[in-house]
């Protein structure tokens, strides 16, 4: 059967502009935001859409990110679509309210342009900001490039508002590397985006005059636990919903998405797991080394929350050695956040692949194909017992 793909425009845009365009097409009822590098452009582009009457959105220029997230919570609880964007310290300032948004089961969508956390203050890319929010109960989706950032923001709306999910979604793109780099991408027609996301019809909301509700009640030891368990249920359901939404999106856009991308993994004996823009570099290295006959592959997690542990373990079955590349430090001294979760996911595989962690790119430090090549060579040369302990965590490209 022929796949009906909607008319699309090929455009050249920065990651931030693509996100702002997606927001214009979504046309949320409320946007509340505060500027911070490298996410500021998103807010600026959107201000222009508002100023030029291109959207009907109420734009709330709050006095902080804490208030931006709080206003989004208020708007969403009131019964409308609400969105925001931030980075780094801005996300850190929202921390308290992130948990409130997910605990209240509010389908907010926020773009996070990944940037290192202070101190030392640094404006460049790493994932310490969104990784710091990984347990906040939000769905987290990471984008490799401008196209993915655009596509993910649109899909996030449908995922968040799904009645079986009802959770906020955070969409990430790499600061500067993607947010400020001009790339070609295809964007949908406005009407197709509107149709894809549909009308927003919440079940319970503050502005429902006939059914007043209490939101944010005091929940003590007799109920809190059940409510938290229900929240986890939303995340469990999200796995299927994310895939369904991706399927629907593919029918419109022709582009396919999953929980992660497995690249040339069919017969791979070694694999690198890495998120976001660095996956592009790794993919190039995979192609080059495959030409030399090495059986290697790449896994690029797209959805980090919920963590697709079972699915990842399945694609890693039979792999001899796997390296995780973490663009953040968890400060546990036992590996970065992606590594610890992935290693736990493959614990039950027989035989268990060797696993090593590479922490890289903190504060925007560049990563080169030769670095990636070195990782693959080590993986391919690994003998059982080698990799984990010696060393378990390597800092790539740091002067020591």
């Amino acid at each position, binding site marked *: 059967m022929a796949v009906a793909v909607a008319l699309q425009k090929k455009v050249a845009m920065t990651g931030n502009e693509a996100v702002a365009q997606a927001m214009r097409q979504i046309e949320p*009822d409320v946007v509340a935001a505060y500027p911070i590098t490298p996410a500021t452009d998103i807010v600026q582009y959107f201000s222009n859409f508002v100023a030029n009457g291109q959207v009907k959105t*109420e734009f709330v220029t709050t*006095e902080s990110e804490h*208030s931006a997230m709080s206003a989004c919570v208020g708007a*969403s609880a009131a019964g409308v679509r*609400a969105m925001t964007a931030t980075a780094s310290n801005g996300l850190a300032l929202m921390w308290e*309210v992130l948990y409130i948004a997910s605990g209240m089961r509010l389908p907010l969508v926020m773009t996070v342009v990944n940037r290192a956390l202070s101190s030392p203050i640094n404006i460049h890319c790493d994932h310490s900001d969104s990784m710091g929010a990984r347990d906040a109960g939000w769905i987290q989706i990471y984008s490799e490039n401008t196209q993915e950032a655009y596509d993910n923001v649109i899909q996030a709306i449908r995922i968040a508002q799904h009645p079986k999910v009802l959770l906020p979604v955070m969409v990430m793109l790499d600061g500067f590397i993607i947010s400020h780099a001009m790339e070609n991408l295809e964007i949908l027609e406005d009407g197709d985006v509107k149709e894809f996301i549909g009308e927003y019809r919440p079940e319970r909301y503050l502005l429902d005059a006939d059914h007043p509700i*209490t939101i944010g009640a005091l929940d003590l030891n007799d109920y809190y636990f059940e409510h938290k368990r229900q929240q986890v249920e939303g995340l469990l359901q999200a796995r299927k919903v994310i895939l369904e939404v991706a399927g629907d999106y593919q029918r419109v856009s022709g582009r396919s998405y999953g929980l992660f991308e497995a690249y040339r993994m069919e017969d791979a004996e070694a694999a690198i797991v890495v998120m976001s823009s660095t996956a592009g570099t790794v993919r190039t290295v995979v192609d080059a080394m495959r030409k030399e006959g090495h059986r290697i592959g790449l896994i690029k997690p797209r959805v980090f929350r919920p963590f697709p542990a079972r699915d990842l373990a399945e694609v890693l079955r039979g792999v001899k050695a796997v390296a995780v590349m973490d663009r953040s430090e968890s400060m546990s001294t036992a590996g970065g956040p992606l590594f610890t979760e992935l290693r736990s996911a493959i614990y039950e595989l027989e035989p268990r692949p060797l696993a090593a962690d590479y922490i890289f790119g903190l504060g925007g430090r560049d990563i080169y194909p030769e670095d990636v090549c070195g990782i693959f060579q080590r993986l391919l040369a690994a003998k059982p017992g080698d990799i984990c302990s010696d060393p378990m965590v390597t800092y790539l490209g740091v002067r020591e």
Partner: protein
Amino acid sequence: MPTLREATDKPKRMTGGHRMCAGCAAPVIVRQILYCTDAQLVLGNATGCLEVATSIYPYSAWNVSWIHCAFENAAATLSGVESAYRSLKKQGKIKKDFKFVCFGGDGGTYDIGFQSLSGMLERGHNVLYVCYDNGAYMNTGIQRSSATPRGADTTTSPVGNTLVGKQQARKDLTAIVAAHNIPYAAQASPSHYRDLMNKAQKALAVDGPAFLNVISSCPPGWHHEPELAMELTRKAVETRFWPLFEVENGNWRMTYKPRHPVDLEEWLRPQGRFRHLFHPENQALLEDVKSDVERNWQKILQRCGEA
């Protein structure tokens, strides 16, 4: 405006059966204000006594929509609710008219929520923010706030050998709020309920942000007998500790002037938090407390063009 008698016959937006202390004036203040409108309402509440004691899941004392988000962001949260309403109105997706009222204690208003309040006022959201000022963080066990009067004994400004009660005078929040040039700001007391309800009615009628700072008694925090709640909020006014005034479009006006001002000691004495002020060694401190009140009174008289 309905008489208090008529008002009490109206459907109750806040029901009884909540768990506020006997002698706490906060629920009285909430009722008096909510009696002043028949509009659809969405209420906001900062974390604090009023919030925890009225919303213990699965119960709620609220018969209208109510949201509590966190301690310092009630004004920002209601900014979002009101913006959602504006958006829906603009799109013709909502027919009914709503009003938005936000309640916070002095801690959630003068201190931790100060920034978010200022942001809400500056952006001009159509929200009435009510501070019930009981002069300390009562919910967490009576810690000092910037609204605590000088010399008061709190758990973080205790009466010690070297330091005796709170060392600083109160922050003049109502004046700071008025300096945002919002359409309406006022100070009120539940003891003077006609005055309070008048102000609430004006505050609810303006287009733009409004602010009411209302004194509220607290038996465990002030160390007073519960039955003295109204008596003490009245004496706060009659001793000039809590002047009743309003700032309407920039015009300051005294709405009530005690004909025979009562000695401040009559308000201080029934409150255990001021007991030490009457020990002979604290004579000078008592004088300082009195002069804070006098200075504040004169300043307000001046602003109201009555000095």
